[in-house]
């Protein structure tokens, strides 16, 4: 109940992020920057999937954190893709520079929202160890 204003604020930020990304596509009728939103939405997935994978054999003494490390590597890859892809497109004059900055800002807002949400509310419901 205490968290209700935070949830509302976060959902506003998420909507603003998607608005920026979609506006960056629609203003110039060029839908390439939508890939950025897709990348940033996918970015938190590898960490969660890989932590589940690693937790599955928690019992065995020879624990190896290969899954977790691989998830972190893929997360770094996806976030960098989301940052670099609009710059690449703008550099080759496939999209406008304004669309590039708008899609980066929008993608960053979406990713930040997902991170903050999982940091505030994901930890309490998760049964870690």
């Amino acid at each position, binding site marked *: 109940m205490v968290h209700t204003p935070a949830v509302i604020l976060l959902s506003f930020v998420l909507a603003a992020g998607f608005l920026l990304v979609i506006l960056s596509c629609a203003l110039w009728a060029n839908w390439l920057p939508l890939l950025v939103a897709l990348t940033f939405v996918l970015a938190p997935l590898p960490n969660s999937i890989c932590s589940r994978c690693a937790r599955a054999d928690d019992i065995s*003494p020879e624990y190896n954190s290969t899954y977790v*490390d691989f998830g972190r*590597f893929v997360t770094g890859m996806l976030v*960098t893709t989301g940052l670099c892809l609009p710059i*690449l497109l703008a550099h080759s004059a*496939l999209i406008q520079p304004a669309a590039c900055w708008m899609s980066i800002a929008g993608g960053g807002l979406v990713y930040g929202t997902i991170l903050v949400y999982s940091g505030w509310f994901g930890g309490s419901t998760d049964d870690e160890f």
Partner: protein
Amino acid sequence: MALPRSSYDPRRVFTIAFPKFEVGPKTRQIGTYLAGILFTFSFFLLFDAATLSSHAKPPADSPHDVVPVHMSFVDWIPAICSTVGFLITSLLDKSHLQSAFSGDSWGSEGPAAVRARVVLFIGVAFMAGGLAGSLTVLILKYIIPDYIGYIYYGGANVGMNAGIMLSAMVLWVAQSGSDEYEYQLTV
């Protein structure tokens, strides 16, 4: 006169031991993220050059000229070599290598240690070959024919291969530390 070293092992060949990095779990986490970021960033350098080349237009004052040089498959061969080398070095089990180089009583001459050394050599050779190949492409394809405006293609290629090598180094150092989970479970 020479003083005896504190940890003297008569089977050791080199004076300087193989460096053994000890990093905590936090550094391991940050290093893994950093390696992924570097890897993707270097790939995007090459992708950027390729996209520029594929959308290159002749100069505005002479619109009927052809663009003198494009990126072709030759530019991608060093990148392929570097990526293969990165995968080989990253997939190598570091514990075999540590036992191979630190001179443990068992494992120093075992078949696993020998194989680990050979695999490490092949992986690093692939990466160094990729870097050398990208330099070759830069010099032979872009500098010697004097394509002034197109040196960025070759430079991005060199930067990409150097970035892959740097990423492999960061990942190596980050992965050689102990991980937190192992510690928690043994305690």
